[in-house]
């Protein structure tokens, strides 16, 4: 589509997302596509930069977790109700995993014994607004369940969180289990949370350590850039 005022569209979408205006976001998207804009182009030039801006505003604490949650949910609806159907009808036979909506698939869990959730939720949101498909297993998750879910969801990255030093052994258990079932190379493992240090990450053979939600995005981008497809 020529002469698209992307800046105005971004402003409009940003406003809708920050104000929780689901219908506004859906209408703007439908209208833009109806004027001839390709869905992938809209996602790349409008949705993606707007989500990055939302992530940046959270990083600066100009908005908070609930606003990010709502924005991410609205974008998920826009993708599900407008973008993906438009892509599917334009590109018949293309599998969902090849959708430009997803940079990669991440599985997050707070490990066994730990009930802390909010930091991990922040990571989940930052990853979502930066283009990742995120499955969040919640808190107090057994290592065996994490490994099983990673396989079922066919994820690229497993993210483990813990606030408590006494739960760190369970992070190592995840990696040991992946080794044990011969799946270690299939997944990249990143670890974080107040109890985790770069040294610990190295000791247990994790692929990356992140100390903030923003850093998790950088790490995942780096991992996905270098990740070889599993044949």
């Amino acid at each position, binding site marked *: 589509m020529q002469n698209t005022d992307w800046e105005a569209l971004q402003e409009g979408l940003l406003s809708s997302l920050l104000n929780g205006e689901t219908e506004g976001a859906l209408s703007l998207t439908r209208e833009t596509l109806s004027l001839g804009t390709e869905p992938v182009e809209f996602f790349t030039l409008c949705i993606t930069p707007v989500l990055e801006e939302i992530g940046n505003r959270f990083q600066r604490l100009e908005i908070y*977790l*609930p606003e990010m949650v709502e924005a991410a949910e609205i974008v998920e609806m826009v993708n599900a109700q407008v973008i993906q159907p438009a892509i599917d009808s334009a590109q018949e036979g293309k599998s969902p995993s090849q959708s430009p909506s997803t940079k990669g698939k991440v599985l997050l869990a707070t490990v066994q014994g730990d*009930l*802390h959730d*909010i930091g991990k939720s922040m990571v989940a949101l930052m990853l979502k607004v930066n283009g990742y498909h995120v499955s969040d297993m919640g808190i107090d998750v057994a290592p065996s369940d994490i490994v099983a879910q990673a396989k079922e969801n066919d994820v690229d990255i497993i993210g483990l969180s813990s606030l408590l*030093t*006494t739960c760190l052994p369970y992070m190592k258990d995840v990696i040991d289990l992946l080794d044990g079932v011969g799946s270690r190379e299939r997944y990249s493992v990143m670890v974080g949370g*107040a109890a985790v240090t770069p040294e610990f990450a190295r000791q247990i053979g994790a692929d990356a350590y992140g100390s903030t939600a923003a850093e998790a995005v950088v790490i995942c981008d780096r991992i996905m850039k270098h990740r070889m497809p599993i044949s």
Partner: protein
Amino acid sequence: MEEHRNGECQCLLSVLDKAERGPVIDQRTFDRILINRKINELVEKHDIQWDQEVMVPHDENLADRLFEAGMALALDAGVYCIDTKRRMIWNAEELEQALRTAPPEEVLGTGKDSVTLYPRRPGDDIRVAVAGGPFGIPVPEDLFVPMMMSYAQEPLIDIIDNASLITTHGRPIRAASPWEAVACWQEKSLIFEVLERAGRPGMPIGCAENAPSAIGELASTTYGGFRPTDWHHNSFVSELKTTYAELTRAVHYSHTGCHSHGFYNPIYGGYVGGPRGVAVASVAGLILMRACYGVTTMNAGPSHPHLSCDTHPDLLPAQALAFQALARNTRLLIANFERPVAGPCTRDILYEVAALTIASVSSGVSLVECVQSARGVEVAHATGLEARFAAQVTHASEGIHPGDADMVVRSLVAKYADGQKELRKGKPFDEAYDLDSLQPTAEWERLYEQVIGEMRSEYGLKVLPG
């Protein structure tokens, strides 16, 4: 006594009933509607706001409105029980009774090593108690005793709070496993050794730090273990959530006559929102911990989402105001919790500690908890010297009004705020202290003396020798 015990038992049973019979609710709904949306409404309704330049708000009307907002949140939200997925609800009479029956004073420890805590109001010159220790900072087994000695030997520290062991007898410690029990018994043995060597056998111990679940606490708070006169812990999971494990601790403390301390960490930028929401949640959290667990001392230690500290300039006024709200309207024995970004052997840690201490003491806390250095995440990055410093500043701040504290705290914040993002973790214990003499290194001592000098000359604080 029997009637009192029966009354306490009935109260405890009614709390547990709430966990079993309260309305079922999805946790996400609790967080988004009953926490976030409700806090946003209350902040507007009660006009909770302050000038961003102010570090220690000193508006009594605002503090009282904050108390009303916190009470309203406590009534409307209640506590979410993660295990039963039910909301525990208290009515106004129940909450008021919980506040009314809070002890007028509390004695921790025994004999010459005991300490009495008193309720305070903003600006009071009543003596503030000091709990000093690493507060769960992870430490190798061979450093536990020397590190804890560095706190136990400080005469201004009234209560000692333990480090966490990284391993127990060389083995990894796993939460909610027998290893947790082993670690807690080792923690008990080691700290009792420390107190004997320091000549303070009756000193109250903050415990058990190696007990992320109830297992460690139940295993080690018994015959030959940690004592009823020690300072035991209960907590909420953020935001305003409890678990069967925490309720089990409360039952155990009630039946063993243990003193219990509640802590709750609202997360800035999370479901409580910004600083104003942190203030409301802090007030509600402390009221609800009193009602839910029957704790007799309590603290809210909010956490910055990116820095994991509570000394960020955005959080200081929220905490100060919350302390004022509770101190003016209840006789709860409230505490602060000092979690600076910087670590030992840095000037920044002393500035951060001084700022939060002065803000807290002037705002009416009964207890200063110091210091979970370097955000509590760096192995062995904690020493008794920063706790000594905090204790000295604590006593120098008694009698200071919040309005007078504000300019001092603003000046201190200006010295460290820009550097917080650099995460200056400083040095671990074995580089900050001489392991033979158990005294600070010359470098650390020099920094400490310089900043003590600033407290006296620049801020006029009557800092007495430690």
